[in-house]
């Protein structure tokens, strides 16, 4: 994926910060079309931010750190 949208990445990471969720549920949260959602999911998997296990998508340890850092940054901004 050549270009990614900060908005979508943030939505996926922050949604998964609440806990693992099924692929369909996450797809609904991202509000993308399904092929595009799969591209983003693959993109994040390649960068070891998320993993798919037991039918659910969850954050890796690194992904959790990034999502937490994003949340802290938003706390400072708001």
């Amino acid at each position, binding site marked *: 994926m050549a270009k*990614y949208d*900060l*908005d979508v*990445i*943030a*939505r996926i990471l*922050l*949604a998964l*910060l*609440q806990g693992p969720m099924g692929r369909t549920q996450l797809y609904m*949260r991202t509000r993308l079309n399904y092929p595009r959602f799969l591209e983003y999911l693959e*993109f994040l998997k390649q*960068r070891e*931010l998320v993993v798919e296990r037991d039918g659910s998508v969850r954050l890796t340890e690194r992904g959790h750190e*990034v*999502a937490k850092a*994003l*949340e802290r*940054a*938003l*706390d400072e*901004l*708001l």
Partner: protein
Amino acid sequence: MFILATAGVVAVALHTATSAHVLLAAPTAQHYTAAIQATANRSEVYHGSTIAKRPAAENREGNWTEAASRTATVDICSGGAAPWPFYNDTAKKALCRANVTVVLVNVNYDVRYVNYSNTIPQSADGRGYVPLGNYVPGLRWVLALWSAASGMAGVALYIYAVYLSLACGGALCKWRRFKAILPFSAATVAASASLAPLSPLYAALAVPGVWGVWHYYRARRRLAVWLSTILT
């Protein structure tokens, strides 16, 4: 706080948008009175058609000057032959029965007002701006439409921002509230644009909105740079 602050501004914009006809209303004597108050302390408006009595001698103190007049139906009599003469500075003038509005200004600071018959004392405080549309008739519709359109846009943006801020939960909500800064700020700018035709002072309302937009884009750019270092 930001929501409440913008709510106030947008409420005013909504009011303006729904009452844009104010801009279309015919200019009143009050406007003309107000227009000259930048240099005057007190002024009074004569409605020529009902002037029935000239000022009493004791009330002709001070330096009265004719500051403005609106003569929709001009019928000015010269000399003292008219039935309703009055003093304009030191010169005696007269107005015939006509649809004439004359504004007299007393530049004497200590003369607060004079009780002429059929006059309306006007305070010199505030209300000093005459909407541009009153001077340029063709512009009035444009300004009214502009006011209505930008006011409605402000309200729509505000509703969208409230939706972004409130219809969410969890960590994702923080992101949506961050995103809501943009429509909130834009709503403030739109409200300011809506009110600006009434008075240029309302343009000052745009300052927090512009700051909000700038703050949003600056923060977003920083987040994007930070995230790109992680994702690449």
